[in-house]
């Protein structure tokens, strides 16, 4: 799975956690999860759970709040 495939799958997760009218289809790797997408602490929690399920990546040892941008999340998924 390349970075673009991961980004597309992450967009499906963002569709669940982003409720403020942000156009998810146009989200790029550079988007800041908190500031640009408006994902709050509860959204981050769901994001972590969904990443575990979708990508089989163990998120137990990482605080979701350490991810600043979408690229950070993709990096983490690629490394694990």
């Amino acid at each position: 799975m390349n970075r673009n495939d991961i980004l597309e799958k992450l967009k499906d997760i963002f569709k669940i956690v982003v409720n403020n009218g942000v156009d998810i289809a146009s989200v790029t790797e550079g988007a800041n999860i908190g500031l640009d997408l408006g994902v709050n602490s509860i959204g981050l929690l769901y994001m972590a759970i969904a990443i575990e399920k979708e990508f089989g990546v163990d998120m137990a040892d990482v605080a979701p709040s350490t991810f600043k941008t979408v690229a950070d999340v993709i990096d983490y998924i690629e490394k694990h």
Partner: protein
Amino acid sequence: MIYSFDRKDFAKFTSNEEFAKIVDLKTVPELLNHLKNNYLGLKAIGKRDETVATYDELLNDINKVCAYLKEKEVKKGTNIGILFDNSYEFAIFALGVMAYGAVAVLLPMQLDEKIIFGCSKKYVLNGLFYLSGFKAKTSLLNPNELMLADESILNNSYDGCFIDNNVKENDAACIIMTGGTTGKSKGAILSHTALMCGMINGCYGLSNFMHLTYYSMMPLTHVFGFIRNLLTSLYTGSLIYFNHDRMKMFEDMKKYAPSILVIVPALAEIFLNLAKAYGLGFLGGNVKHIICGAAPVSSYLVLGFNNLGVNFCPGYGLTEFANMVSGNPDGINYPASVGMLFPDQEAKIVDGELLLRGRNMLMGYFNEPEENKTAFVDGWFKTGDLARFDENNNLYIIGRSKDVIILANGENVSPAYIETKVNELPFVQDSLVTEDKNELGAQILKVEVVLRAAVVNQLNKTGEELVKFVTSEILKLNDSLLDYERLSKVVIRDKDFERSPAMKIIRPKKVYNE
């Protein structure tokens, strides 16, 4: 005009048989007698080892806490801290302290040892019950000055009943922090009768409320977790499970199949999106009611869940009113309303602000004489919320007049707290933190600053360079703020803020979209 509803106004929403189960109780010992007389043999609380405690076990363990306090000769009426995670033990020790006739001070589990020490002084703790896993958090406390004990005392055996049936309804029962971890935290003192009133109010307006299954994600140190989740669950002979690992939230819901969820709007939004995408099975497949509050609730949540066949009830509550002020039993017809004022309360609107009084009102803030002077007017509590009633006396919250920004996840941000930090920067003369949206529509915090000319002159920076420097220095403060307190936008003003005659900055009133 004074608004109120009578108990019988809620009868039409519930069957006669079920409605008759709402009996009045005035104290925690009366509640425990109610449990003993009605629910022995039933399942009460899921424990962390996956077993379930029955009401028998629960009452037995609560009695042990009372017995231990008596054995240690703890004086009744004194303050005892409760430091546990969301768990069976939290419930046992908090109820045990109150049933003994002492005052349970509910301490958020994320506090570190320094703040726990500070709380022990601020709340004049005479003792502390804590989870053994939190022992390090008690390291600065002196066991010669206050009683310290963990959950292992539940292994003790005692003969006799140590629950104090002489506790009076107007005695203090517990102290619950309000203002949370943001801004200046205050402890609201709730009497036994206020606590029981809040607990009972949780039943009004629901078609059925007896013997439900709760799955609780709200902290037990928050009134929504402690009163609406835990106490109403026990009062109705229901079974409650606590979330012990947030990553296992959805697995838990499949396993426990809750019939009622008590949640904040930010979680409700995600749940609605998931339920629409994957079906209600994602939430366990058995959810009948969702009680939603602690932050403004959007109408689309009410309609969205009702379309899926889930009774979604927005409500309005305050720590100061034992959580439960109003609830909306008719969301389909009034989706933007927080519903009908629960019984035993009165409300009026003064200058747009909602004022309340009633049986569930706090006794006052602990050791806060100034706050206690300004929080009330002629015996009415000033909620700080801008509100209106419609022709059917349904309540609508339309904004905030108090200096608090409420985020969708229920966190309260105190702009004054962040402004204090910004104002500590030498080049800032004054600042104002408000809620804003970024260009993509996301909720963010914005700070406007007026610069201190004398200091700015010494910086030898002008124009873009100055803006860049000021912005970067202010955004560095984010490192010392909690995630949800972070500033995203800095605006440098070229003139001073609009000010009141007392020279205070006039803070814009927040108005919600209905």
